[in-house]
């Protein structure tokens, strides 16, 4: 595709700090290459702001190749923008038209408070992960090689698909209920599908779901928005699997 340059208008959420009241600011940015990524476009805007001696816009990013899960952004009403199966860092400006007005907002959820501008605190995900997203391993010196454990190919594939979740939070951002079910179910499934995960299976799902609720995420009503917007195409199968794991654990738990 031939590259060209477009001029765009941006409406971007600006907020000084966690306690400040934010608002949408309007910016004009000319000569944006359609080959640039969305984050490169924001870099260009920040350069312009710095030259104008204005505060650059804070946004999260790290790998810029769709693997770390740091980038976020609610772009034109959708998490990670209008494209499918990509993160914001993989989103190209060719998805936008010349003269278009683009809305850029942070993830909106009680459990993801804004720190500054477009940066939100996603440590709630870390705390959910710490509540059960691990397996016990033998550290006596005779640790078994994971490859020595036979696992059906089908299960291994499903576990791998679940493990592709990068913890970006797009599922929460796009859900009307700000529910974290897709993320938590991916983390639960990844381990529930493998023999290594069986030891903690019951406590894992109970503790992770409890932490999810305590962190203030909403309740899943199966709208399916998360799976559509997820850059890693995590499937709703995982939510059903977590529901099964949860029912099983809740019925058989002693407390």
């Amino acid at each position, binding site marked *: 595709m031939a590259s060209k340059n477009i001029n765009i208008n941006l*409406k971007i*959420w600006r907020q000084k700090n966690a306690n400040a009241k934010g608002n*949408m600011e309007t910016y004009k940015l000319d000569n944006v290459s359609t080959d640039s990524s969305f984050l490169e476009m924001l870099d260009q805007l920040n350069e312009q702001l710095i030259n104008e001696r204005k505060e650059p816009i804070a946004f999260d990013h790290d790998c810029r190749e769709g693997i770390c899960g740091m980038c976020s952004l*609610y772009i*034109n*009403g*959708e998490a990670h923008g*209008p494209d499918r199966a990509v993160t914001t860092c993989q989103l190209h400006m060719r998805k936008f038209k010349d003269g278009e007005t683009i*809305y850029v*907002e942070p993830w*909106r*959820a*009680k*459990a993801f408070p804004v720190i500054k501008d477009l940066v939100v605190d996603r440590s709630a995900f870390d705390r959910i992960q710490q509540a059960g997203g691990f397996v016990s391993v033998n550290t006596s010196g005779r640790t078994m090689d994971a490859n020595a454990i036979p696992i059906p190919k089908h299960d291994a594939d499903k576990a791998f698909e679940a493990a592709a979740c990068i913890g970006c939070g797009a599922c929460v951002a*796009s859900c*009307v*209920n*700000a*529910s974290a079910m897709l993320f938590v179910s991916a983390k639960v499934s990844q381990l529930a599908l493998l023999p290594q995960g069986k030891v903690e299976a019951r406590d894992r799902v109970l503790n992770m779901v409890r932490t999810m609720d305590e962190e*203030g*995420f*909403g*309740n*899943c*009503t*199966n*709208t*399916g*928005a998360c799976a*559509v*917007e997820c850059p890693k195409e995590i499937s*709703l*199968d995982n*939510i*059903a*699997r*977590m*529901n*099964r*794991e*949860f*029912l099983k654990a809740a019925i058989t738990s002693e407390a």
Partner: protein
Amino acid sequence: MALTGLFLCTFLIGHLLGNLQLFAGGEEGKRAFNEYGYFMSHNIFIKVLSYTTYISILFHAIDGFLLAFQNKKARPVNYAYSKPSANSGLASRSMALLGSIILIFICTHMANFWWKAKYSSTPMPLHRVEVSAPGSEQKQSLYLTTTGSFLPTEGLVIKHGTQIYAPEVNLKVGEGYKDLHSLTVAFFGHDKSEEGFPANEFALLAVVLYSLAMLTLSFHLWHGFSSAFQSLGVRHPKYTPFIQMVGKGFAVLVPLGFASIPIFLYFTR
């Protein structure tokens, strides 16, 4: 949520099958429907089932409001611009609103039929038939009793809703059927009074509102039916497409079946 929702779906099937009897007209249809109504209010198994239904509606509604309330709180600041239509269906995002409308409908529906049939201060007229003696033009009005015999309407009094008494001796001589058939026909029929039930001057409004309520129910089930299976963890590449298909069919056919009855009554009675 899922369990009460699915239970209510089975309730809908039973209720619809009962209501469809209203398509049968004439003395036969009236008698069959009123006998069915008597059975529904006198069978211990049905009693248990109906209390389970009341409790299910209550739990389902309370649980639904609680979820909706918590979900509102989970996003205190909304997006300036959001495009949810890009990733999800309208029905799935409006379950609480749809449910609230259904709840209002259930209340008015019960006030119009259940309350009138059960607790109204003016006793329900009983099932009557008009017969004329052979070779005579003279019509006589008779009560049909639950034993299948007939009693004259003149000279007897009704106590406790359906008990037929001989006034002088204060002796129970039989039990009649509440005329639920005529109640319904008078309610939805086009300017039609029935057997002691006055014509409903708002019949058209009643038919329209009833149909809109069924449309609401349709949207609720369009998402709700298959959603309940997902909530219970029932998801499988072999069966889920089937469940979703049945769900869509259920969501269209069941409310359509319900709505067809008042529409039929309005235009034919």
